[in-house]
């Protein structure tokens, strides 16, 4: 191949061919098609998962929630519940599916509780593999889980054994983003300590959480670094609007003050949301190129001949 490089002006001057317009052509088609994204949330009951999801996407994904009592929970096994919401912003359509896992960690003996989750993830891979190998591939639906928020309890001293087992079992199947829930139960110092503990334990056990790709030349290097340094994100969610200084904001009203969800000095909610929406494309890519391809080659090796 020969390399011919042009330093080109963007006008219709001599030398301008016009294929620099390709990203716009791709963009136009994508906008028409819309996007799909599947987010899974895993964590014990009562860690604020549903509230956080509602806060993240400014919607009410769980309008009539029925919260079962302890006695009911004894018999329950882990359920998988998928809710889909269609969000449109500035002409871009996103079909977001949130996969909830009620019952996780509730049972007295939680030994098998993540098996159901693993099976769900594998089933989506299996379905996709089946569709991809089929004859008619025009309308393959991608229901694979692109990202998993794993909720860590703020009440402990770090990761619980269940947390470690879950993440070890799933880090090869899905992008794991650890999140410290109900961060308003911790002071800032306690938060830092907990974050450090969690990171140490993650590295100790060889757990591979989702890594943010390096910043591109035109991206804010510092911002990326700051975001990276905040993992695991310590977040707060809220379904309530409170009036603060004349503005209505999402928050939690305590006798000693108001915790503001979208205040970066109070918690990492904004960082988490920004990270998620600006990395949707990368999360999908890593799911496709790494997790799915691993699944696929394992499956094909097993049944190949």
């Amino acid at each position, binding site marked *: *191949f*020969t390399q*011919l490089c*042009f330093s*080109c002006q*963007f006008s219709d001057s*001599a*030398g*301008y*061919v*016009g*294929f*620099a*317009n*390709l*990203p716009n*052509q*791709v*963009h136009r*088609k*994508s906008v*028409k098609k819309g996007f799909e994204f599947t987010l899974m949330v895993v964590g014990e009951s009562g860690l604020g998962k549903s509230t956080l999801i*509602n806060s*993240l996407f*400014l*919607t009410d994904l769980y309008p009539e929630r029925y919260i079962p009592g302890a006695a009911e929970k004894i018999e329950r096994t882990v*359920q*998988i*519940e998928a809710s*889909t*919401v*269609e*969000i*449109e*912003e*500035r002409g871009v359509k*996103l079909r977001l599916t949130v996969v909830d896992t009620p019952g996780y960690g509730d049972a007295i003996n939680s030994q098998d509780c993540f098996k*159901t989750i693993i*099976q*769900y993830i594998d*089933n989506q891979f*299996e379905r996709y593999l089946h569709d991809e190998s089929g*004859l*008619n591939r*025009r309308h393959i639906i991608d229901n694979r889980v692109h990202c998993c928020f794993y909720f860590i309890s703020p009440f402990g001293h770090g990761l619980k054994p269940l947390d470690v087992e879950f993440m070890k079992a799933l880090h090869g199947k899905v992008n794991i983003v650890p999140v410290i829930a109900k961060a308003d139960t911790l002071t800032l110092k306690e938060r830092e300590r907990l974050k450090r503990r969690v990171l140490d334990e993650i590295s100790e056990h060889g757990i591979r959480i989702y890594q943010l790709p390096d910043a*591109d030349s035109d991206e804010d290097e510092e911002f990326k670094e700051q975001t990276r340094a905040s993992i695991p994100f310590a977040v707060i969610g809220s379904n309530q*609007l409170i009036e603060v200084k004349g*503005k*209505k904001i999402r928050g939690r009203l305590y006798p000693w003050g108001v915790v503001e969800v979208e205040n970066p000095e109070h918690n990492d909610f904004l960082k988490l*949301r*920004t990270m998620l*929406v*600006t990395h949707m*494309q*990368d999360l999908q*890519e890593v799911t496709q190129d790494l997790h799915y*391809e691993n699944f*696929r080659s394992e499956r094909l090796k097993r049944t*190949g*001949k």
Partner: protein
Amino acid sequence: PCAGPVESKNEAAMSELVPEPRQKPAVPMKPMGINANLLGYIGIDTIIEQMRKKTMKTGFDFNIMVVGQSGLGKSTLVNTLFKSQVSRKSSGWNREEKIPKTVEIKAIGHVIEEGGVKMKLTVIDTPGFGDQINNENCWEPIEKYINEQYEKFLKEEVNIARKKRIPDTRVHCCLYFISPTGHSLRPLDLEFMKHLSKVVNIIPVIAKADTMTLEEKTEFKQRVRKELEVNGIEFYPQKEFDEDLEDKTENDKIRQDSMPFAVVGSDKEYQVNGKRVLGRKTPWGIIEVENLTHCEFALLRDFVIRTHLQDLKEVTHNIHYETYRAKRLNDNGGLPPMTAETEESHESNL
């Protein structure tokens, strides 16, 4: 065959292990705040920017084939399209060189960059097409080449350990050069397009259009369009692949008014009205290649490069390639996945 038993086993397994997830019906978004604007922006639309960045980073492949008799200006036209010497002009067959006995396929690649977007452009030339005395079946090597690229892609796709980005050598666009006789299409033109329009996107162009007056051009175009229609030749953009009304309206105009594009190519610049333009200098005037009143080159360029480049690739991938793939799967009763070791034993199957 592999596909059969594996499928049914899995479906049974699937239904046992996990109860079907309870799918709640999709809900349209209801912003919770009274004033949606204040609390409203999530940032979903940044995904467009993410995709744009990805396209720019990875660059893209584009493979264009040119078919037509010697001397119709194919290489010059491609060079004009991409404003660089991506195709070597031949000066005809001299006494030492022999006209190739069969059609040759010559693929030459270049990497060109514009506005931060990198394109790996491959121009596939087909010297010898239509140049023999007996041109029967001279499209066969071309059809074979096109199918070989589909086969290459398919092999890579079914591999167990496959590349992240499968190199795409499939022909995205085939420019077919019609001689400007002013009368009608030649039988060879019809035969070629009939056979090949089923496997590749064909864009017919009337070459060396500066040999016709405006009236002759209009008449000839109409006649060619009629002939193509009567013979059931579906050139790109094919009617059946219009995705929505917007596409259909846009493409109808192109199909019924503009195509086939009557073009002139040139890599020489002349001064006209103080501007440097590409053109052909004759005693009776300068033919400006990019002047729409002189010829339709600019229309062809805008069509292929500026508006339909991505679509050409998508139709190739989603339609032509899938047709090839489906045929292969049906013929073989299912393609087994390939590893290096199984390659030899499966060679004969493929």
